[in-house]
């Protein structure tokens, strides 16, 4: 079967790739484009480790086909920092020790940024439900919630 040619934008850069029809966006990001920051924890949309933004919408990239990226704007963890300047969420995750193994962290950061963009002033409960699509097995979520709360405070002030 011949491959599909796709033109898209990833983290602001025009990007072209070839993929098979059954390949997921996550497969394409990781295996064809070398963007391995998005992780595959389940492949079934249950863990959120592969979270990316497609046209302002938070999705599990394991549930999106690579071919569906045609003409879209994709944002991944690799584009979250501005050069050497970390996004406030990235800084606060480090300050609050909101990661242990770190494999869920890219997904949490993408989901948390999306949450704060839509709701800059979330309650603890809104943070907990907003991040309920992302599994973390190490932290018990306590320090993640605190990092997001602190980042929200900083982002409002800036």
């Amino acid at each position, binding site marked *: 079967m011949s491959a599909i040619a796709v033109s898209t934008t990833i983290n602001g850069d025009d990007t072209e790739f070839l993929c098979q029809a059954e390949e997921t966006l996550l497969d394409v990001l990781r295996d064809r484009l070398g963007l391995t*920051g998005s992780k595959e924890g389940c492949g*079934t949309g249950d863990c959120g480790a592969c979270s990316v933004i497609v046209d302002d919408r938070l999705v599990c990239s394991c549930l999106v086909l690579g071919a569906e990226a045609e003409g879209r704007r994709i944002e991944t963890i690799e584009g*979250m920092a501005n050069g050497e300047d970390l996004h406030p969420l990235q800084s606060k995750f480090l300050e609050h020790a909101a990661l*242990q193994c770190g494999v869920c962290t890219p997904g949490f950061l993408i989901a948390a940024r999306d949450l704060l963009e839509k709701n800059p002033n979330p309650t603890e409960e809104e*943070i907990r439900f907003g991040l309920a*699509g992302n599994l973390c097995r190490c932290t018990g*979520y*306590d320090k993640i919630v605190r990092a997001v709360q602190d980042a929200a405070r900083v982002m409002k002030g800036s």
Partner: protein
Amino acid sequence: MNFDARYAAQSFKSVGTRPIRPDGVDKVTGRARYGADFNMPGQLVGCILRSPHAHAKIEKIDTSKAEKLKGVKAVITATDLPDLTNGDAAMYDILDNCMARGKALYDGHAVAAVAAIDARTARQALKLIKVRYKVLPHVTDVDEAVKPSAPLVQNDVFTAGVDPRPTKPSNIARRSQYGHGDVDAGFGKADIIVECSYRTEQTHQGYIEPHACVASVNSDGTAELWVCTQGHFVFRQHCAGLLGLDVSKLRVTSSEIGGGFGGKTHVWIEPVALALSRKAGRPVKLVMSREEVFRASGPTSATSIDVRIGARSDGTITAALATLRYSCGPYDGMWAEIGAMTAFACYDLENVRSVGQEVLVNRPKTAAYRAPSAPMAAFAVESAIDELAGKVGMDPVALRIKNAAKEGTRSSYGPVYGPIGIGPTLEAVQKHPHMNAPLGRNQGRGMACGFWFNFGGQTCTDLNIGVDGTVTLAVGTVDVGGSRASLSLVAAEELGIPYEQVKAVIADTSTLGYNDMTDGSRGTFSSSMATISAARNAIAVMKERAARMWDIPVKDVDWEDGHARARGKKHGNLPPLSVKDIAAAAPKTGGPIAGHSELVADGAGVSFATHICDVEIDPETGATKVLRYTVVQDAGKAVHPDYVEGQYQGGAAQGIGWALNEEYIYGEDGRLQNPGFLDYRIPVCSDLPMIDTQILEIPNPNHPYGVRGVGETSIVPPLAAIANAVSNAVGVRMTHIPMSPPRILAALDGKKAG
């Protein structure tokens, strides 16, 4: 150089602070490389074919069609992994688990594997492999498996540890026993006896990163393995042994690890990937799917435990007895034995006996899961202790304090305790405001204690001082939760330099001496001991160099606050030399400066915790909400308190999932029905409250800074603490974990009917 590991009280400058971890930026930017994030030139994709049957004879495997498929470069079966174990039964079991030899022993057992040019071709090839099975009767339930009528999982296993040796094979692979005193006499002295049976279901470690590796075997007998593992040196030995490679020619690099919790202390796919690479003559990447992770890696034991405890009317326990049956999967383990050792470890008991039975079942091989075996035993015993408190009419905390083990107590598993934290954690809980907070309707509070041994073991560390005075610390214990930060703090403390001038890395198996795995909460305990030793050796070198720079006797040189200082009035005008000064002069004073350490870290101090939990039950649905949770645990010395708290919180969260929701569900056909995160639901953010922590520091006398392991104990009390809370909320003793909504509704219905 002789190293004195004894604790010495001191005030710390670096240890106890909370700096940002050295691997942090890589992990928040997506640059950190985990098991599946690495590739090699010419790499193939590996896939494993797994048994759909719980128990079946493999009569024939026909791989011919798969081999002919374009793009397939290798197909292997057990024949390609010949038995080189030389009578080592434990290694043979590992080999058999990696690739079934003659019989498939559980749903998900590997039977063949392929390597192909891409995933699509590999998947197609799996479908072309024809396996002829003869399905055999199976047993998956731990209580069913011990019945004389149960199908035998292994035909040649006779219960070990009983005298005389049985004449018939059994699914009870081994019996073990611990304790002391005269239990029968002890029960004779009791005014009150409680007795109950408890069950816990099988759970998975649930690390978010599936097992993944890249293997490359060369024609000259050398090989490389990139893998997510808790112990790359152990993986090297196991893989080299199973593949017939020289240990020194297999270089294993541990990737960043996306969670392990014990599940990544065992080899599963790695020998298969190496065998595929050897046959294909190309590197092979092999990554488990989540379904494979559930069906064929982990999990912990399912258990069935009987407990009997007797006490005088003043609450003094006179006798304690437990029989613990733990499922091991199809191979002998030591899971029930560990349960038997830990069951009564919190208490000072005159008469105690615990008996463990390792039970074979047609489920995946049981793997270590954070303080393996202890949470289930603690669930049974701490539930019984609460029952006892109720019967005696004592406050549960007071009854535990009355019977708590202390320094000098002979533990139920043998050794006599040094200074320990069970009493202090109980006293802290007794004083904690959480214990006196008001409770509402349908709400209940529970507390429980937990114990874990903590391990030490073989450890090797290199500390190299760069020409600019900054320090590279190379350790061999895999960092699963922030230990590079802790070990950098320890090096900074010892050398007297800022934390930022130390960079800790995990060395691969070819660049550092052997290290045991990161298991048993040993990582920071053992490697910090080796780091202190290595730093002191480096300081000795720096003192010699300073002496040479000053041209004075080395005995006149002291080390203080990161500087060499010339002692005595005769050298009074010499300004101190910093690490940077000495490092800059190193090329002219004798060359590179380094400190090494190879040691066996003995004396890991035992660890205790006490947890408090508030829950609310919805009587309509049977659902439980955890309202408040408090962890009190002894850390010995918290090197990086953020990551100590993180361990406390993470263990509690895993325990909450285990207590309320997580379980392997098998059908009548012996197949796992919920091998995914949708149906095997681990706690999500909205399921949990904040988890409060209180760190106690009772120094471990066998570590220079007093450090104890902290990683595992936190998962021991939650099952019991939550069961006690739920039992108090519903007014019925809950004896079956998880306390899922159907079980709670059944308990409520039973109460109404009763």
